Each structure stands twice: as C-alpha cells, then as structure tokens.
C-alpha cells in the first residue's frame, strides 16, 4: 500500500443544496517524508537534492533550504549571494506568472492559450543561471562561486522587459494605469492573452467570484512559525497553518500586490475575487522586473563563506510565485537530523481558508458547474498540485 502519492493532489468535496455550493470540504495533502529522505545527509547535499522534487518552484525551494541551513549553522552569506538568490527567485516568479497568464488562465476560460509567449518567456528565464554562475554553483549553503556577466545580464533584463511588455502587456505597462476604467480599456484592446483573460473576468459576477474575508498575508511572525514547525505536532500545523490568533491567511500575488491602486479600487468594486487575483500576477510582472533591476548591480564575482561543522536549528523563508514558503531544519554536526516544510498552498487551501470561503455559497445549478467553479477558484489561488473534485447533493 502506498500511503503517499508523490505528485500529491488536494481532495475537494463540494456539497450542493438548492442551487448553491452549501459546503466545501478539503482534505489536506499528506506531507512528503522529507526527514526520512534527508536524515544523515550532509547539509549541502540536501540543498542540492531537495529542489529536484519541486520542479515548479525549484529556485524558491532552493533558497528556503539554503537560508534554513545557514541559520542553523550560524553563517551569513555575502551580499552578492543573497542578490543572486533574489534575482533567480524573482525570475522564477515571472516564469510562473507568465505561464499562468498565457496557458492555464486562457485554458480555464475557454480561450486560446498563447503558447509562443509562454515558450519565449520560459526559454529566456532558463538562460539566466549561466549568466550568473557555472553549473548551478550558486546552490551551496554559505554561497557558491559566482561569475556574473554584467553586460549580458543587462541585455538579458532588457529582453525580458521587452517580452513582458509586448507579449503579456500588449505594449502598455499595466502597472502604471491608475483607474479600473483604464484597465478595462486596455483589456478591451485584446492585445495579449492576459488582456483577453481580464476582459472576460472584468464582468459583474465574475470579477468578484471567489472573494472572501480571509486576511492577506503581510508580516508574519517568524518566531511563531519557527516555534510551530519545531513543535512535536508540527505536522498538523504544516498541513493546515493558521496564525497564533487562529486566523487563516491568503498568501501569494494578491497579498503582495494588495497596495497597488488598481487592486484597491477593484477590491472596492468587487472584492478580492478572480479579477483581482489574476490582475495581481500581471502587476507583479512589472514590480518583479524592477526588483531584478535593483538587485543586478549587487552581483559580484566571488565565493561563499566556509561552513562550520556545527549543529543547530534554522528557519528559511522564500517568496515563491505562489506565496511564502518556509523550510525548517535541525542539523547535527553538519548533517540533517530533521527537515520540515511549510508550503504556500497549505495556507490558501486550509480547510477554512481562502479557497473554501470564496467558494461557499456560490450559485451552481449542477455538479458540472460546481466543479468548474472550484477549478476557477483553484486557478486564482494556484495550488502547485491538481485538485480532485467530488460533488454530492445534500
């Protein structure tokens, strides 16, 4: 008997009653047995192994692992190493958002995907690592050998900017728009897959679909996260995390872009629904480009720091495309003793979280409609795994 499905799915049960989704039940995913897999391995070996399991957010996972191990060892990587990790993480966010906006989004709404743009952006992002170092050398606790090529990196960034502006934003920096009316005008031009998607979503009923009163993750007390992940009942926390006050939070692009004027105005109109969540990804493309531009000058040629053969406990965080990610590690004499992970999906797909709250009460005449709504809500909150949806009648 296999008790752990490696690909992991989230099981969703919808209960229909009088034309509405009366109840939404989620079964948290089983946690992968990371401790068993990593125990006894050297910390640097573990940092290279782990990302193989997470191909959709490989960079963010690597960064969280490196941060956790460094904290446990009491070492700080040189600033250039942190800058390299930031640039790579931001680039991965662009890659993921671009894929959602050109493939998943259109497909979920019966529109044609823009395969060419998705391919161009993904290919361009894949070319980044060799401009910063050789052979993934950056993946080392304490930092690895960096050999950045400043001119090529500047050209790379300009080309990325061009790809986003032309392929996704139809020639207009959407993040510079001030009013929802301007956004509607831009979307009506239908000049790109995200424009067509938003045109479809910026309609009464659909724009606000999936909104709920779930709070957005801003500052999170890392001391509390550390304490909960260190506790003996850490698994129940990692499967269904809440704040110390017992609140569910939404993490991801909407939570990060919530201060943007367009998001605030959309929220006033229709809440934090489909339109706001998709728009947040588009806005984040522009903000992420700026982040990369600011971090690139900090990349310097150099090595990391030496690592002590030590023990200790560490918490590492990374802002993945899907939201905040934490790794927790306990090392003994430089080897993994315990390894724990808290993924963004568990916040958003908490049994009482944003996914569930936003679906509850939605009008759905039949099982097919209810499933389609759950899939749309899934797209908006972007789990890193598939949803297995089952509909029953009360």
């Amino acid at each position, binding site marked *: *008997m296999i008790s752990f499905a490696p*690909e992991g799915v989230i099981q969703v049960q919808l209960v229909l009653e009088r034309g509405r989704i009366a109840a939404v039940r989620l079964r948290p995913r089983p946690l*992968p*047995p990371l401790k068993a897999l990593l125990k006894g391995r050297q910390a640097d070996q573990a940092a290279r192994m782990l990302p*193989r399991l*997470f191909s*959709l957010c490989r960079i963010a996972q690597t960064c969280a692992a490196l941060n956790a191990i460094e904290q446990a060892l009491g070492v700080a990587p040189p600033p250039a190493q942190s800058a390299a990790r930031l640039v790579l993480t931001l680039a991965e966010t662009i890659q993921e958002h671009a894929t959602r906006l050109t493939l998943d989004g259109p497909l979920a709404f019966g529109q044609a995907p823009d395969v060419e743009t998705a*391919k161009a952006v993904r290919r361009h992002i894949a070319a980044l690592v060799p401009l910063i170092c050789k052979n993934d050398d950056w993946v080392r606790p304490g930092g690895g050998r960096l050999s950045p090529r400043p001119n090529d990196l500047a050209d790379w960034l300009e080309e990325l900017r061009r790809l986003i502006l032309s392929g996704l934003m139809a020639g207009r920096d959407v993040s510079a728009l001030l009013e929802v009316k301007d956004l509607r005008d831009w979307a009506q031009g239908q000049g790109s897959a995200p424009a067509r998607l938003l045109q479809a979503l910026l309609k009464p009923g659909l724009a606000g679909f999936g909104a709920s009163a779930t709070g957005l993750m801003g500052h999170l007390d890392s001391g509390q996260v550390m304490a909960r992940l260190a506790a003996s009942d850490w698994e129940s926390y990692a499967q269904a995390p809440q704040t110390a006050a017992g609140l569910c939070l939404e993490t991801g692009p909407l939570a990060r872009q919530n201060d943007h004027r367009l998001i605030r105005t959309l929220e006033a109109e229709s809440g934090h629904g489909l339109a706001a969540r998709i728009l947040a990804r588009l806005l984040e493309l522009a903000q992420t480009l700026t982040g990369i531009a600011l971090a690139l000058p900090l990349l310097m040629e150099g090595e990391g720091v030496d690592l002590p053969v030590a023990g200790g406990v560490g918490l590492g965080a990374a802002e993945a495309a899907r939201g905040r990610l934490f790794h927790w590690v306990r090392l003994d004499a430089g080897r993994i003793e315990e390894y724990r992970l808290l993924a963004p999906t568990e916040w958003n797909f908490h049994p009482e979280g944003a996914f569930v709250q936003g679906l509850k009460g939605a009008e759905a005449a039949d099982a097919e409609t209810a499933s389609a709504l759950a899939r749309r809500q899934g797209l908006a909150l972007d789990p890193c795994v598939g949803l297995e949806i089952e509909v029953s009648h009360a």
Partner: protein
Amino acid sequence: MCLAMPARVVELRDDDQAVVELDGVRKEISLALIDAPGVGDYVIVHVGYALSKLDPDEAAKTLALFAEMQALGASA
C-alpha cells in the same frame, strides 16, 4: 509542495502532440513549449503541456529520488 514527476515521451504525434508515460499511465499532451523533443525525453507536465525538458542524467536522479521517497512513504 510543487512536487512534479518527470514523464517520459513515448510517442510523437502531429501538431506538437505526444504521448507521455508516468508511472505506467499514458496521456496525450502538447510539446509546443519544448525545443526539439524526441521519444525517450523526460518532461515536466502541467495543464496538458510539457513545460520543460530534463537532461537524461537529471531525470534519472529525479526519478530515483521520487522512488526512494515513495518507498519511504509506504513504510512510514
């Protein structure tokens, strides 16, 4: 956790379509995002599209890791 297992391309079809195999299950997907795909390549599949191609060495290491984790999960 964004666990994604590599799937092996077993048949190329017209219009960038292909059949991949994962854990004994076959599925038709699109290879439109992949450069120069071939039978035997390992790819990461998402919403019916192969998103990326792994080099054979990396694919072998990744599959071994999943197999190890699956065995550990089963005995846990």
